[in-house]
């Protein structure tokens, strides 16, 4: 789960080190203090969300996280997560590499696809955009956007006019 979150945060343009998962038992107060102090200092170095190296600007992050929350609720990524957990249990291999590989090959593509779809709708709600603009705003290449876009056009949610896409009038 933590690995999924880390990879997905990176996909959203957030430094994955902002998420920490640490273990301290009830008897380990000094260790807890050490962990929390180290962690707070590392975040202080990184600065506000969106200001660390390689991160998206804060407006993009806001929009993207709203899409990401919806993506995390969607059925497909959740099924992928369940299936991966089942597979790891069956194979008995819980090494870091096996988990990383499983997440990046199975769960992340599902989450990313949902994120792109949701963010597409959010962007088009602000006004019409063409393929190039969409690709730049979504951090995705045109091939990745085409599929959800054509599905939404088919459903009648989005319409295309002179190469520009916009939300269909209801």
């Amino acid at each position, binding site marked *: 789960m933590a690995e999924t979150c880390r990879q997905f945060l990176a996909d959203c343009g957030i430094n994955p080190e902002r998420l920490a*998962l640490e*273990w301290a038992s009830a008897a380990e107060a000094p260790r807890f203090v050490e962990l929390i102090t180290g962690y707070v200092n590392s975040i202080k170095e990184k600065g506000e969300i969106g200001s660390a190296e390689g991160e998206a600007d804060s407006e993009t992050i806001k929009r993207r996280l709203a899409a990401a929350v919806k993506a995390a609720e969607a059925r497909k990524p959740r099924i992928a997560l369940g299936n991966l957990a089942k597979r790891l249990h069956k194979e008995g291999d819980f090494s870091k590499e096996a988990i990383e590989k499983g997440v990046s090959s199975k769960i992340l593509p599902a989450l990313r696809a949902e994120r792109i779809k949701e963010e597409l709708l959010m962007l088009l709600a602000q006004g019409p955009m063409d393929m190039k603009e969409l690709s730049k705003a979504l951090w995705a290449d045109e091939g990745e956007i085409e599929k959800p876009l054509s599905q939404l056009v088919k459903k009648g949610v989005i319409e295309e006019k002179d190469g520009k896409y916009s939300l269909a009038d209801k």
Partner: protein
Amino acid sequence: MAQQNVVKKESEMAQEGFEPRILGFFCHWCCYAAADSAGVSRYQYPPNVRVIRVMCTGRIDARFILEAFRCGADGVFTGG
């Protein structure tokens, strides 16, 4: 000019005194108890963490973490 300097100084101070907002998900039986006993034994630790107690770290969902960042957290600390 003087005012400009003041403004500059203020922004510098804001940079130096940046206090991150961190959300903590603490397990009731482990980290939460550790935090409690750290408090009782008067250890000093930074006050930036807002804690949400969960009954088990396994209860935490990817949604919680994304939602925390969406609400403006600069970091999420999960303690089991």
